[in-house]
């Protein structure tokens, strides 16, 4: 879980560099960590079950269709965005 943000960042960097094959390969390589993160979101009811299914489905679609744009959409605006909302808030809480 701790290094998932780093993994997501690397995927984004590879995608921005238009290294689609490397981005997908890296995603597959680190799938367990990402899966764990998505499960964590579901288990802690951060996202609903429908959203969880949708998210997994979209990620799978990105991989199956080799759709780099969909991959970046999911990673940037779903996974990283939620991560930052969760853990940045925690950081603020801790400081308080």
């Amino acid at each position: 879980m701790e290094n998932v943000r780093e993994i997501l960042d690397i995927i984004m960097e590879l995608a921005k560099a238009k290294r689609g094959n490397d981005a997908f390969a890296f995603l597959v390589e680190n799938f367990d960590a990402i899966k764990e993160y998505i499960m964590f979101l579901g288990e802690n009811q951060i996202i609903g079950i429908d959203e969880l299914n949708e998210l997994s489905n979209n990620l799978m679609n990105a991989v199956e269709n080799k759709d780099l744009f969909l991959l970046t959409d999911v990673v940037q605006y779903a996974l990283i965005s939620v991560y930052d909302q969760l853990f940045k808030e925690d950081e603020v809480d801790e400081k308080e």
Partner: protein
Amino acid sequence: MKDNYIFNKNMEAFIRAYPEEASKYDLITNNKEKFELETVIAYSGEEVVRAVLPDGRKLMLEGIYGKDDYISDTIKSYGRISPRTPLFLVGTMYIELVRKFAKATNDECFVVLYEPSLKIFDYVMHTMDITDLFGKLPATLYIEGLTSGKLSQRMSSMFTLEIFPSLKIFIAPNYEHLCKEEVLRASKGLRDAFTELMSAWHTGARYTDVANKNLIYNLKTYADGYNVAQLRGILHGEYPAFVVSAGPSLNKNIDELKKIKGRAAIIAVDTAIKPLLNHGIKPDFFCIVDGKKPTELMNHPGIHEIPLVTHLSVASGIMDLHKGKKFFYASAESIEDEVIRVCRKEAGNKKYIVSQNLPTGGSVANTAFSFAYFMGAKEVILVGQDLALTNGRTHADGTFKAKMDKLNLTEDPEYFEVDGLHGNKVYTRGDFDMYRIWFEKYIKDNNLTNAIDATQGGAKIHGTKIMTLKRAIETYCVKKVNLKEKIDALPKMLDYGARKGLSDFYYAFPEKLMEVSRKAKQGERAYRKFAKLSEAEKVDNKELLKCADKIKEINDYMNSDQYALFVQAGMIDIDYVMRMSIYEEQEDEKDERIQIAKQGILLNGLIALYAKTMSENIAVIVKKRTIKPAKKDINGKVDRFLYELSKEAR
């Protein structure tokens, strides 16, 4: 979801702004694009679109999670967007990006929006209100299959050389998979547009260095010249004019021209003059526009008898070689306005001392064509105007070579096919095609119905009637006209007074340039002070403003004084460096001021140097090539009065 209300609203605006494209909209129904579009529900609840490829692959065209954020982030990634920044965007679906881009620049931007997919364009027309794209937004739209002309031409007409370095490019997601060929072609088009701009700039550079020199040299012949304004309407709408170019097909029908026998005006372009004279055909005029045309092209003993239509920047070697009558039209050099002004000021008869422009599309044949209409030709008949590489040749035999070389057209990407005169396809090249497009535009803009193409082969010029030369001569050359008599009766453009004005201007030229040099030195000093004040820890605003005022004064002078502009026109190499850096953004205001000062020091320093060098060179020319008004130039009573008052008479 497709919405007819939105579609109708868009269509109404589309027809108004892009009538040509709108008239072809039905082509969308015959679309053969091999993907389908379907919608999915985004995280926000709205519909987003994706493409389904024949192999079953599904590619998103909009984001499910971050549709709007993606656009905002793209804009953010551009950093501070300066006014005049150009954007090349592929995919009408991303019109929101154009809106945000325009907002960031207060609508001071240049956007070319390219849509390679008719299917996606139709989807956008049915689902998004894009009426602002058809008027309000500073964007031009190019739709593959609907918009005619080359994309690269559209881009080079929108993007100027100085804004190219800050060009932003956005290609909508997955378009590289859906419309791979078109996207590749667009990127090639972008490269071509840049190459075209660079080549136009190089052409300018190639001619500018000689244009100034030619202009000063040619003032001597100008003093004895005529003005094309004297030929306005000379054909009274009663006689036809033949514009003879030296396309490869001229070899086939050149002898037919002998049958004209004084029943039309024959205007030869520069390269056609020798072949015509060699075939015993004497044109009534020949035109030259080129500042670097080789003198050998005109080297024919019969050339002096043919009046020349030309301008001040034409190659001085040819102007000196041709001893006959010269009719001047306005060159693009702004210093010519000053020449006209000083001549008119002193002239007894000002009637023909005017800056008479002849519209052109860059080729001498374009100029000859508009000249024919200027003379009031009843019909204008083009001959040898191939605008194509007929039989793999660029020009007729006997122009540059006795027998022209044959080119390999199919293997060289420089050559491409266009409609031929007889429903066939012919090979052409970029410059020829540009001239053809100009002819078509000139015909359309002036509602001309009397332009005839009697070229035996070559590219089709839409708007002209196609006819054989033999038939054109039989049909239109029905009345005798003695043009020579009319031309011989014309007085010279400049009378005694005007020549005196020209002479004063000519001899004062070197000193005027020295004045530019001195002003530029002052400008350089002001910029140095500006840089020093800007670099200081604590800025002295009062001094800075004072200095800025001085700089403004010098800049105003440099931008308006004809002599200063003359010097700068000759500095095109330097101009390139300045152009490329003019819109570079600096970190903060202080850096920006220092950068401006550096450019100002450099530019003014160079103007000072150029002006001084030019002044010295021109001093040598005016000493060798004298212009002196004499008693023989007296024309009319006012002129005689001026002469009697002058030193020459006493």
